[in-house]
């Protein structure tokens, strides 16, 4: 199918890609040979390498020059960070803390119970304020554990506050409530929070400032602060970071090496995992990221390797532990070779034996990686045809990683997955082969692999143009960016992501969230997208601020459509009657905006 006859049918050019997309079914890869028009390139680059264009971005890329803009995105350290983002991230102190320090500030219930039950005073932080917080919470937990009633000593609001303050909390002045609670000492805040009836507590949390939400969590359930900061940072960076490609890649690689936030200790291990084992390597060497994840307590815990030990001699003791194949299997299937990468069940067992003893030091207290030689399987193993001699130690696991990063299946698997995120759900094999060649020749240098992809004719082809469905995170972030909305509380906004089917850091399966359309096009999720879009442009999403009048200033429906889609698209007649803000919502919830 060529462009000319279509134009004769007077179809708007913007429909071309979709027609072409439909036509591509017959000959899936032919359209990747057809060049994308030069005028579309800046938008295409923004759609693929960022969380969506903001007003002005397309012109900015054009002005800078596509090549230079891409080169800068490939070197994020050369891009000055957006000061607005830095200001919003600054209060989220867990983001910069080591895990033990984080646990001292925001202890888990397990730690607090260990303290209260066994008198492990050494667990508590030295800082007097933190110590007081931990002691207060441990006391409350202990009450809950021992007695039938959770809070026997719960006081009423009237006992805790003077009548004037109670009137403020029961009144309608939201700012007044925020001021009152923000200024309160922490122990009093905790008591007040416990005393608030649910019908007051919930709206107060939803409508309060980000700072107060965090303070409320710290006072009552401090481990939630860790999750709060993670959610906030993820959304804030997606929306505000100037280093957009870096954020896109951190999201991609986190999902490649997925860890489920709600699995036990991972509730406090994900922060350092993403920061120290994923982020530094997204444009670095694959082998460095692989090793970092293999040794990260978050991964060791998630896939159980920390408990995997050499099979004990017969007869087995009661409750004796043994080999656990979880990590070995996912390492081969999901992290490196791919499910068809050419390994057997025997390889999985051999790999698991090589990794016995890769464990966590003091797991409840946030300790790091440790190799325990006593539980390591020292017998000979054969992994993918390579013999790993008997008598080894920690280096057995390192040898496995080396075999895997140098295996041709890994180069191909990683290249395909990247092409699937950046080019098309079903990327052309020729492109994958060229990317895999770069991977092999450049020692798994991911920036070089990205360059091969971004220099390819397939990336800049009609086959790639608007061929991807946005994930919920991409949809929400791109809508916020397109409308210039301000994020006031990303934590509340994270609930919207859950409605759309992508609770952040909460993909239970080791596969991570998919980047292909099938995962995201179910009914409930689609309706949630539509409702989010309508609420967004009419300034009704908690945690977000949009000026609905901005859409009126744009004028005609076609102009509103172009302002959010960044390309000319016909606007159906029946939309013309709606108010500008609603038109914008309909476009953002409509089919065209779901693609990038």
């Amino acid at each position: 199918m060529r462009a000319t006859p279509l134009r004769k049918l007077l179809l708007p050019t913007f429909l071309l890609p979709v027609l072409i997309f439909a036509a591509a079914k017959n000959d899936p890869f032919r359209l990747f040979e057809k060049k994308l028009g030069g005028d579309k390139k800046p938008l295409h680059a923004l759609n693929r390498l960022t969380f969506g264009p903001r007003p002005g971005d397309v012109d900015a890329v054009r002005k800078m020059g596509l090549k230079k803009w891409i080169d800068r995105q490939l070197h994020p350290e050369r891009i000055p960070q957006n000061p607005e983002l830095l200001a919003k991230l600054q209060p989220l102190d867990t983001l910069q803390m080591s895990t033990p320090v984080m646990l001292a500030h925001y202890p888990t219930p397990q730690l607090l119970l260990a303290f209260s039950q066994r008198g492990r005073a050494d667990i508590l932080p030295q800082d007097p304020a933190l110590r007081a917080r931990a002691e207060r919470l441990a006391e409350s937990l202990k009450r809950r554990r021992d007695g039938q009633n959770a809070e026997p000593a719960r006081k009423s609001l009237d006992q805790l506050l003077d009548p004037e303050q109670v009137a403020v909390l029961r009144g309608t002045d939201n700012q007044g409530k925020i001021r009152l609670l923000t200024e309160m000492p922490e122990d009093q805040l905790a008591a007040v929070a416990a005393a608030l009836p649910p019908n007051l507590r919930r709206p107060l949390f939803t409508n309060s400032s980000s700072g107060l939400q965090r303070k409320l969590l710290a006072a009552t359930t401090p481990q939630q602060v860790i999750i709060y900061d993670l959610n906030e940072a993820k959304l804030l960076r997606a929306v505000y970071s100037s280093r957009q490609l870096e954020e896109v890649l951190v999201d991609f690689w986190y999902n490649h090496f997925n860890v489920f936030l709600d699995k036990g200790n991972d509730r406090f291990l994900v922060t350092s995992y993403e920061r120290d084992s994923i982020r530094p390597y997204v444009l670095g060497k694959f082998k460095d990221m692989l090793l970092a994840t293999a040794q990260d307590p978050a991964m060791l815990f998630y896939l159980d390797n920390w408990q995997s030990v050499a099979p004990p001699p017969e007869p087995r003791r009661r409750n004796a532990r043994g080999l656990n194949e979880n990590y070995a299997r996912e390492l081969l299937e999901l992290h490196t070779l791919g499910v068809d990468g050419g390994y057997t069940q025997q390889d999985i067992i051999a790999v698991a034996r090589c990794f016995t003893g890769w464990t966590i030091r003091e797991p409840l207290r946030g300790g790091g990686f440790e190799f325990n030689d006593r539980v390591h399987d020292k017998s000979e193993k054969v992994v993918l045809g390579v013999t790993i001699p008997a008598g080894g130690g920690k280096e057995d696991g390192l040898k496995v990683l080396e075999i895997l990063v140098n295996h041709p299946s890994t180069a191909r698997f990683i290249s395909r997955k990247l092409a699937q995120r950046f080019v098309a759900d079903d990327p052309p094999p020729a492109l994958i082969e060229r990317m895999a060649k770069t991977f092999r020749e450049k020692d798994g240098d991911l920036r070089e692999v990205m360059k091969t992809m971004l220099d390819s004719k397939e990336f800049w082809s009609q086959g790639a143009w608007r061929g991807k469905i946005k994930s919920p995170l991409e949809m929400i972030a791109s809508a916020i960016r397109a409308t210039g909305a301000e994020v006031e509380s990303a934590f509340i906004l994270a609930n919207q992501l859950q409605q759309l089917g992508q609770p952040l850091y909460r993909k239970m399966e080791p596969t991570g969230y998919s980047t292909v359309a099938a995962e995201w096009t179910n009914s409930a999720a689609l309706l949630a997208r539509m409702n989010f879009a309508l609420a967004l442009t009419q300034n009704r999403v908690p945690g977000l601020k949009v000026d609905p009048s901005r859409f009126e200033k744009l004028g005609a429906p076609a102009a509103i459509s172009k302002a959010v889609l960044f390309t000319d698209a016909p606007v159906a007649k029946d939309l013309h009657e709606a108010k500008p803000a609603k038109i914008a919502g309909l476009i953002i919830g409509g089919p065209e905006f779901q693609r990038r």
Partner: protein
Amino acid sequence: MFGIGAAPSWLARAASTSTGRRKVLVTIFQRGAADGLNVVVPFGEPRYYELRPTLAVPKPGSDAANSAVDLNGFFGLHPSLASLKPIYDTKALAIVHATGSPDPTRSHFDAQDYMEAGTPGMKSTRDGWLNRALLPPAPKSSPLRALALGQSLPRMLRGKNPAVAVNNIVDFQVRDSASSEMFESMYSRSLDTVLKGAGKDTFEAVKMLKTIQKESYTPAGGAAYPTGRFGQSMRQIAQLIKANVGVEVAFADIGGWDTHSNQPFALSARLTELGQGMAAFYKDLGDSMADVAVVTMSEFGRTAKENGTRGTDHGHANAMFVMGGAINGGAIHGEWPGLQQEQLYESRDLAVTTDFRDVLSELVSNHLGNHQISAVFPGYQADAKKYRGVVAA
């Protein structure tokens, strides 16, 4: 129930072939590992009382309101499940005891994953057994044929067959109806085949539910669903089954079973909710129950012996309930492995004598009518001899 004009075309067709009406399977997942030994109590086994000096449910009759509800002289229901006893007596409720997974894991995360994927020990399975259990779609199948009540699609229902997650029937719509029509027209005119198709499914489901949303729903027979998420899920599943909108499989879950400490209060509250929810569903559906089966499951059971904090820890085998009009009810199926030290799994837990897939396969095959069990449960040796006879022949 529907205005003729409002009913989508496929529904008219489905109704016209009502003789070919499909059966319905409702699954209930008890997340957190329910304590099967205190749910279906082996009061006839003295060892039970030795293992649980403070937690054991007393023998029937010994302490009226707090004692087990006798089922067959050996087993009894936890008193908070008394609402299920009449259903058991009418032979519409069966129990399979000592069921579970052949996989030894005691991780909630892994065990739920395995039970939903339907492939114990295999993490690479991408879809869920309940999705695979669906029959090949009818020429024009309902957008609501696979339905989960909740915010997201559970693992069990994911897969190649379209499945809808509905958190609340009332919320399953575009908030203002003018916008809904515009969205529908935008999606229907889209040349994007993927989104056009998804949009079509969505708006068909929306329309179907719209008719239902408008009517206030009064459960039949005076059925009273408990307040809370589970009761509301069961109520809405019943509402949709009775509305004849083409539901074939449905899913609901209920959490809070991980009773490591102070178990009696928590377990009793959970069981009251579960029992009342199931009993209300049974009463509400009335004669429609003939085509419906409900099955419960939980990722594993709990330790036979109580722990030091008036609770139980992660164990192995559990009990499953199967309820329906065509169920061999009024009976406790399966083999009882016993509670003597040497009879316990790894010397601590009730042993598994019935693979959970034996029960589910029988339902999928003999109730839903999908006999391709090896495709529904890959790696499981399908064999009708392993079936416990929960589905009436």
